[in-house]
């Protein structure tokens, strides 16, 4: 669990930037080089999948809890 300062109305993208300032390199793990959320990564804001509430433009609250979660599923390997 990592605490970062978030302001009301901040977007998920801005929250990731704030996180990246504390932990360089995490942006590239979460977003591709075009700034899109990686295919097998989901972000949850207060329990909601950000993909369904605006994606990277979804808004967070000051006390929001944001989860960056790799997709878990079976596969070929």
């Amino acid at each position: 669990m990592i605490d970062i300062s978030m302001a009301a109305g901040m977007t998920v993208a801005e929250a990731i930037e704030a996180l990246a300032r504390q932990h360089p390199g995490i942006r590239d793990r979460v977003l591709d080089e075009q700034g899109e959320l990686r295919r097998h990564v989901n972000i949850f804001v207060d329990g909601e999948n950000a993909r369904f509430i605006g994606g990277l433009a979804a808004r967070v609250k000051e006390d929001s809890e944001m989860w960056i979660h790799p997709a878990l599923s079976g596969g070929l390997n």
Partner: protein
Amino acid sequence: MNSATKLSPHAGDVVVTVGTAKGAFLFCGNQRHDFTMSGPHFLGLSVSATAFVGGAKPRILLGNKSEHWGATVSWSDDFGATWNEPAEGNIKFPVGSGGTLNSIWTLEAGTALGPDAVLAGVDPAALFRSDDRGETFRVNEPLFNHPDRPRWNPGFGGLCLHSIVVHPQNPKRMYIGVSSAGLYRTDDGGETWSTCVNGLRVHPDVPGATLCPHKLRIDAENPSRMYLQSHPGTYRTDNEGRSWISIEGGLPSEFGFPMVAHPRRGGTIWTFPLTADAFRVPPNGQPKVWRSRDGGASWEPLNRGLPESDGYFTVLREAFCADTLDPAGIYFGTRGGQVYASNDEGESWRMLAEFLPPVLCVKAAVIQ
């Protein structure tokens, strides 16, 4: 097989890097007799490309990929005891280009370009160059923006730039191979690229099929000559790629993935034929390496020490290589997880590992 967390090779030893679908393994051969294994490194990541970057203590590069967090080039300067991962992804398409890195298909130390130069071929097909021993890379924009690009179709393995050949005396001349797009050549260091596919055939049963080269290698003595294993066919050029002739006569199949050229002796090449097209297993379940010593005019099977029957493994294009000792050592890894080595240019084989994850790439270096 001895295993160790740290390898300590001495001069004359061979280090073999094996990238698999679930990590990398390093093998150190004491005079190529006793091999010690270290690994897995980057357990859980697919390691699809590897290279040694020169010097008495070579840097080991790995092109690795997490299905979640993306692909990067990592490196070790102490034979795997420690690894450096870039804080930021070090192979990235320019912002606004629309390109996103899927995987790293090949890494080549571009020694003709300079001691610190490294070239990378990736999916989606693009060429990247590093001048700091693989720590940072930049894309070759003229190739990425080539007018042919809209007609490049991905093969079953993706739209991959899998082969990079730099002319040993004229580094402004390079060749690249893309599945399924074809072969391209530059004579000006990558500013302009033109196709060099005259004589290659497209798949005979697929209307409108594009070319699907699999692996391109240059002759050790005659840089005008190159060898190509393609989807339909095995080929040779004697005129820098201006035209190609078939050299698959004598092979049990026209299909296969890898092509390896002798590090010093011109005209000597190895390939690993598979039955085409959907089956992709050794013909009759008898895996054999095939060697030519006359530039593909004739071939001989080499399978002493390989399974004589019921051998249905595949060898991928990046998973077959040679070292530079005399006689040359040859190494390959299989999708079944085996690693085989030969100290006598393929005359005989022994297994270095049996139960690895599917092998994606193999490279060998002799320690100075």
